[in-house]
């Protein structure tokens, strides 16, 4: 009995100790769900001997809460542009030592000094893309080119919306002719009413985020608001699908790699960022997740098929018609409240 107990106890201790014993050189990476090639992670560990603790989030908002409550848990994070702007304003990011990130020179020109990080001190772009409508060409009555298709009632009960505050409010604002970064509460009210009416009319089938792409592949709806890369993924699996950035304009976004001030392994984080910016690795990731790469050298490596894909490399006039999100921290309460009204409209 005593022996068995002793054995059990030592087993227990071993179990607790094991994860600790395994600890070596690590980097704690916090990235979007399904947003990196596993192979790239393995290659990184192999080449540098640094183990990657890979963690995932679904929306910028969820990630922010984790970043603030689990201090020190993350070394590299992949927030979007407007979130980086806020993190910089709140002094939550550590300046990157670019001597350790020589591959950052590969960044395309138009993103080398982006508005959210004007002096490029804190971030290295990872992927970029647009927001648009993914639709089933066999089931639409006419070609889709406007956000209006989401609101007209023509596709009642066949529309997937994004369960993401900024994106959904933003497209409603755009449709109404406002800026996505408007600071006019009346415009926000109008956009909210539009979304509430859309829901009450029974147009919306579901509000979701990452589920959309697989459901669109399975033809679960006719229209879906989607990010360009998810759209490309779905189109590759279902040739009936097509993607469009509506003529009213849309959101163009960048997800970039940053290092929180609380990071415990800053040098490893820089090695990681440098590795992910290496042309062949950027290519690997880009081809795996199918978003647009901000890495000039990788773009050149990927060849013509990628370069001429209009979903991933839209013509300049489409990009010019799109806006980046700005941080609107002081409007957060208003956004959250209005969004709750949309989600609970019956």
């Amino acid at each position, binding site marked *: 009995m005593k022996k068995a107990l002793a054995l*059990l106890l030592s087993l*227990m201790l071993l*179990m*607790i100790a094991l*994860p600790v014993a395994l600890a070596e050189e690590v980097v*704690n990476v*916090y990235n979007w*769900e*399904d947003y990196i090639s596993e192979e790239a992670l393995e290659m990184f560990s192999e080449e540098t001997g640094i183990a990657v*603790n890979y*963690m*995932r*989030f*679904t929306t910028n908002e969820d990630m922010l809460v*984790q970043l603030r*409550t*689990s201090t*020190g*848990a993350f070394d590299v994070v992949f927030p979007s542009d407007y979130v980086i702007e806020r993190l910089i304003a709140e002094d939550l990011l550590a300046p990157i030592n670019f001597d350790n990130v020589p591959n950052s020179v590969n960044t395309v020109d138009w993103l080398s000094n982006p508005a959210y990080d004007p002096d490029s001190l804190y971030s290295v772009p990872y992927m970029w893309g647009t927001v648009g409508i993914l639709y089933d060409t066999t089931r639409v009555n006419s070609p889709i080119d406007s956000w209006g298709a989401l609101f007209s009632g023509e596709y009642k009960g066949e529309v997937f919306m994004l369960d993401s505050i900024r994106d959904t409010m933003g497209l409603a604002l755009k449709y109404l002719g406002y800026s996505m970064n408007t600071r006019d509460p009346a415009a926000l009210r109008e956009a909210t009413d539009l979304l509430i009416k859309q829901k009450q009319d029974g147009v919306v089938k579901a509000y979701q*985020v*990452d*589920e959309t*792409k*697989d*459901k669109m*592949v*399975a033809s679960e709806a006719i229209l879906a608001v989607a990010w360009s890369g998810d759209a490309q993924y779905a189109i590759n699996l279902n040739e009936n699908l097509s993607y469009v950035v509506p003529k009213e304009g849309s959101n163009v976004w960048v997800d970039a790699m940053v290092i929180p001030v609380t990071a415990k392994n800053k040098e490893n984080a820089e090695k990681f960022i440098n590795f992910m910016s290496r042309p062949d690795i950027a290519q690997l990731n880009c081809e795996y997740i199918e978003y647009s790469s901000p890495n000039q050298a990788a773009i050149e490596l990927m060849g013509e098929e990628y370069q001429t894909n209009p979903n991933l490399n839209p013509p300049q006039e489409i990009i010019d018609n799109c806006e980046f999100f700005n941080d609107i921290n002081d409007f957060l309460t208003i956004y959250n409240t209005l969004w709750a009204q949309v989600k609970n409209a019956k």
Partner: protein
Amino acid sequence: MIKFLKRFYLVIVLLFLYLPIAVLIIQSFNAGVSRAKWEGFSLKWYQELLQSPTIMEALYVTFTIAIIASIASTILGTLAAIGIHAMSRRPQAAMMTMTNIPMTMPDIVTGISLMLLFIFTRVERGYFTMLLAHITFDTPYVILSVLPKLREMNRHSYEAALDLGATPGYALRRVILPSVRPGIITGALLAFTLSLDDFTISYFTTSPLVQNLSTLIYSETRKGVKPTMNALSALMFVALLILLLAVNYRSTKTSEAK
């Protein structure tokens, strides 16, 4: 006729309960990724399962936590039950209320309150905090399984043992524990299954780094659950079924022996 209708009703209800599970298990053998289309029989998801470090790690976390938490809560809970049983009326009522609170509290409130505790005390959330949380919600169930057995026990046998010269420890080991053993075993098993299946409380008390199966599945549900998860749950389901049958077999055997 009535008898047939009754049986028929039970079959229908059971069908309702097992339909999704059957779907899950069948899907785990589907060669394709799609949830609704059958693309031929294949074991590839089972193979992939064994090669996925993420799933293996989550499996490790889930099982070690379930084992450690059920052992710890069984010890804690059994001692507590013995103590509560020996208490006078009023403290006993107070302790029972305290025990009932975590059981009736919605999981989400338990999870959030523990999250607040860990954040407030600046304890980094992760494996250890999840373990503490599991012990916390397991223990009341152990107490409630052990207490009835204590009530069934002869009140005076413990005192008699002491009068006959046994030390309290000896009396505990030789008198109390054997007679409440079935309760302890039930409690331990209950604690084990509860912590194996818990999602809500784990979700709030861990960091994104330490995932158990539930939290891993939760993050996968956002982008479509991969069939590897179905394969895993099919395996676990069968394993638990065998465990249950073994326990049942043993208990029928021992009751026959008596």
